[in-house]
């Protein structure tokens, strides 16, 4: 007889995720992933000026901020055949690289680390031992005995105050925590340092986009003008600020993030390189064009699909093909005019809501029926995992450098076979490795920008097709990118100068979606099957695997319904 456990809210993610899991003989037998919030942004964009769309859809997510805006301006540029100037391409690359660095570091320390790091255990650390260990792991200068002594004291006082704040009620002392007190203390130190550091790197977004979260973009280029001889434009002072932040970021990632990742991986590798693999197909659209967005061969991250973990072949993907990507709603709270078993390509996507779940407050969802606001996307009827692991696997299978060598070296360092990639640990490690790469690439993009300026090209916007008078009566386009959490596509149909249809197929939709009609599981649900649960009241193991995907639910659910069923209004203001 199995026992159903519920984790809701699943915290340290973006948005509202609920996991229900059936436990039998100490292992997860089946699992159900549900998105429990809906807003309706795609509908709100309809009938608006396509040049405005990025502002709306950018607000899909404030954690992976900027990437939906980028994807949206690319969709419009694709619809109107606009090629942006090289400077704008490099500035966009730098901004996306900055997002990766920020998002992955914050994910590792603020969202994921507490699954591996026992904060309370750090109280037992010997600061001198911690210092020795830290200096062995990395040249990072904040590693003295005094530094760790002060931190330990600060932590002791904090715990002693009785107000544990965000650290209250963690699964502290759970036997699945394996780090030594000294390792835990080092990780806590870097948790706090990362919180300070993350404010620095996003200044790059402020320079080019005016603010972060939610920096500004522009159809046709970027809104920030560059002029090396003007006080109000992006000039040498601004560019130096950018360069310095990129260099500091590289140092932090190389000297703090990567050593910590390897330290943690070494301790947990025996168990967690074998758990949490899930679906065996990996999809990446690729990104970081070295020249033009349209030239996919020059992407730093290659495009393609790996099927059934066969690393000998990379399959092509065509987002425009009506035969490839389709969205299903068999277990999602929607209906289609063609019936609940139909699959629709995003250009023809429908958004008719049909909530059939229990009325809140509820204790369990009816998982036999519909149970999520997330639709179920499929590529040629197959579920796909997307995200850092998918990107690294596609690059590895394609023999792309420097990804391949970096993966091989890391596996060697950890004494693990290539199969270890297909796991919870593989996912967490892939995220770290690509952060290291984006830190290097960001400086490369910066150098290319400077070179271009040196050659006398300071253009930032292509005005071709800015004015609506030039637009065709009907146009459609797709914007593709890699959000930190995985493959992201925006589809736009423009008619009579207005948005006629807008659809987003986002990373967490691929990963967190419910099973399809024939019972094929998507990535989250599949990755949980077979995971041992030590204590059903403290399902730390579920958090480890789900967090390894870095869930982002606001993105995953963005559909709506016109039909109001219930209005709860206490007062008007």
């Amino acid at each position: 007889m199995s026992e159903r456990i519920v984790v809701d809210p699943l915290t340290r993610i973006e948005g509202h995720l609920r996991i229900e899991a059936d436990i039998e003989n100490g292992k997860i037998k089946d699992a159900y992933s549900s998105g429990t919030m809906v807003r309706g942004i795609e509908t709100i964009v309809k009938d608006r000026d396509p040049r405005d769309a990025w502002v709306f859809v950018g607000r899909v997510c404030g954690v992976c901020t900027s990437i939906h805006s980028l994807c949206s301006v690319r969709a419009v540029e694709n619809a109107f055949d606009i090629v942006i100037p090289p400077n704008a391409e490099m500035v966009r690359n730098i901004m996306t690289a900055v997002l990766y660095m920020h998002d992955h570091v914050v994910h590792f320390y603020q969202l994921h680390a507490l699954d591996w790091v026992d904060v309370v255990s750090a109280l037992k650390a010997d600061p001198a031992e911690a210092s020795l260990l830290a200096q062995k792991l990395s040249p990072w200068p904040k590693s003295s005995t005094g530094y760790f002594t002060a931190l330990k004291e600060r932590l002791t006082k904090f715990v002693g105050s009785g107000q544990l704040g965000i650290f209250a009620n963690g699964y502290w002392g759970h036997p699945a925590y394996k780090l030594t007190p000294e390792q835990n203390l080092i990780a806590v130190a870097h948790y706090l340092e990362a919180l300070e550091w993350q404010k620095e790197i996003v200044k790059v977004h402020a320079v080019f986009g005016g603010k972060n979260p939610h920096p500004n973009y522009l159809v046709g280029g970027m809104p920030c003008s560059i002029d090396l001889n003007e006080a109000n434009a992006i000039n040498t002072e601004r560019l130096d600020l950018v360069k310095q932040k990129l260099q500091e970021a590289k140092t932090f990632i190389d000297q703090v993030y990567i050593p910590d990742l390897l330290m943690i991986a070494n301790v947990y590798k025996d168990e967690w390189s074998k758990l949490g693999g899930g679906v065996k197909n990996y999809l990446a659209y690729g990104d970081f064009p070295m020249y033009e967005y349209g030239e996919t061969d020059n992407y730093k991250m290659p495009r393609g699909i790996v099927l059934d973990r066969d690393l000998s072949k990379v399959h092509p993907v065509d987002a425009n093909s009506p035969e490839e990507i389709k969205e299903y709603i068999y277990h999602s709270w929607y209906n289609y005019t063609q019936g609940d078993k139909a699959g629709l390509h995003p250009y023809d996507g429908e958004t008719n809501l049909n909530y059939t779940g229990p009325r809140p407050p509820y204790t369990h969802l009816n998982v036999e029926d519909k149970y999520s606001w997330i639709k179920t996307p499929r590529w040629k009827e197959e579920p796909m995992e997307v995200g850092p692991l998918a990107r690294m696997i596609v690059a590895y299978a394609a023999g792309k450098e420097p990804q391949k060598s970096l993966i091989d070296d890391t596996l060697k360092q950890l004494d693990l076979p290539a199969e270890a990639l297909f796991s919870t640990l593989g996912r967490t490690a892939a995220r770290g490795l690509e952060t290291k790469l984006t830190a290097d690439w960001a400086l490369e993009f910066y150098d290319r920008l400077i070179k271009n300026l040196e050659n006398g090209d300071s253009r930032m916007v292509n005005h071709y097709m800015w004015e609506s008078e030039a637009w065709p009566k009907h146009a459609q386009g797709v914007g593709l990118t890699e959000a930190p959490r995985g493959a992201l596509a925006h589809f736009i149909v423009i008619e009579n100068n207005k948005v006629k249809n807008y659809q987003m197929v986002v990373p967490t939709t691929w990963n967190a979606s419910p099973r399809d009609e024939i019972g094929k599981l998507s990535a989250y649900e599949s990755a949980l099957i077979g995971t041992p649960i030590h204590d059903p009241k403290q399902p730390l193991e579920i958090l480890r695997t789900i967090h390894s995907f870095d869930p982002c639910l606001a993105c995953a659910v963005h559909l709506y319904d016109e039909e109001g069923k219930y209005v709860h209004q206490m007062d008007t203001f």
Partner: protein
Amino acid sequence: MEHKRPSIYEECLQKGISRRDFLKFCTTVAALIGLESSGVAQVVKALETKPRLPVIWLHLQECTCCSESFIRSYHPTVGNLLFDNISLDYTETLMAASGFQAEACKEETMKKYWGEYILMIEGSIPTKDEAYCCVGGKSAMQIVEECAEGAKAIIAWGNCASAGCVQAANPNPTGAKAIHKLIKGKPLMNVQGCPPIADVMTGVIVYMLTYDRMPQLDALGRPKMFYSRRVHDTCYRRANFDAGLFVESFDDENAKRGYCLYKVGCKGPNTYNACGIIKWNESTSYPIQSGHPCLGCSEAGFWDMSPFYKRLPDVHGFGIEATADQIGLAVGAATVAGIAVHAVATNIRKKELIDNDEPESKSTV
């Protein structure tokens, strides 16, 4: 109070932060929330003697940009300290606990600090069907009603909680509503913006810690210390507006020179926010400085002020610009003519003020 909590100053000492640094922090905070130098002592006293403020932070229909902005708060060493010195007992984004243990954190805080805790809300409430937003099996409305009852005050973060934001834009498919439309009988403050500036968020918290009351609010429930000035009036490009120097299209010569963005859609003239004063990300920049028009994100309903790249059809400001634009509209002038009239009118008005030796603030309201 059954539980003796250390004051913020005591915690500073415990954390090895010197009194000198502590006083420096207080001065920064005092300056930030617009106090005279004499107010510094008050901040010092408040932080020295008051215990950590228990906080429940709810996430409803939102994108988490407010939480992201909040962690960008910038006071070296003490930004971190401030984060520690409210006791953030429930926040889905950062808390270690999940599932029923997370719910338990919330319930314990409500029980232990009934009438004392601050309820901070990120996100709007769907009213067309409560199932549009559920956490832990409860609907957003049920959770807010539960948590609001014992709260000392409510802070509505950002445009979502203050005005419904993007999901409330036409046709507002989920019936998204601001908190103040649904909850009454509690002191409530709307800290506007999409998201609000990080230091604005921490600024209002410090104000409440210091004075044990809400800051003065404007008619829309926004703290006046950050939302009493138009972006237009505090814009470093304002002189270009007055002189009639405008960006005609993005990345043109005028854009490079940093001329006014009014003609490419800047909503600065009817937006009240501190972007031009505090700026973003440790004063690195703000949208206008980086070449993009202000979108007006701290105003209710700004989403439906689109298309964004058109000049405002109507400027709902006070003072001479409104008059100028009305003149422009009255003569049926096109954009360019309107602005020309505006600029001329502004300068005539200025000349009058100077000739008559009048203070501008008195005579223009």
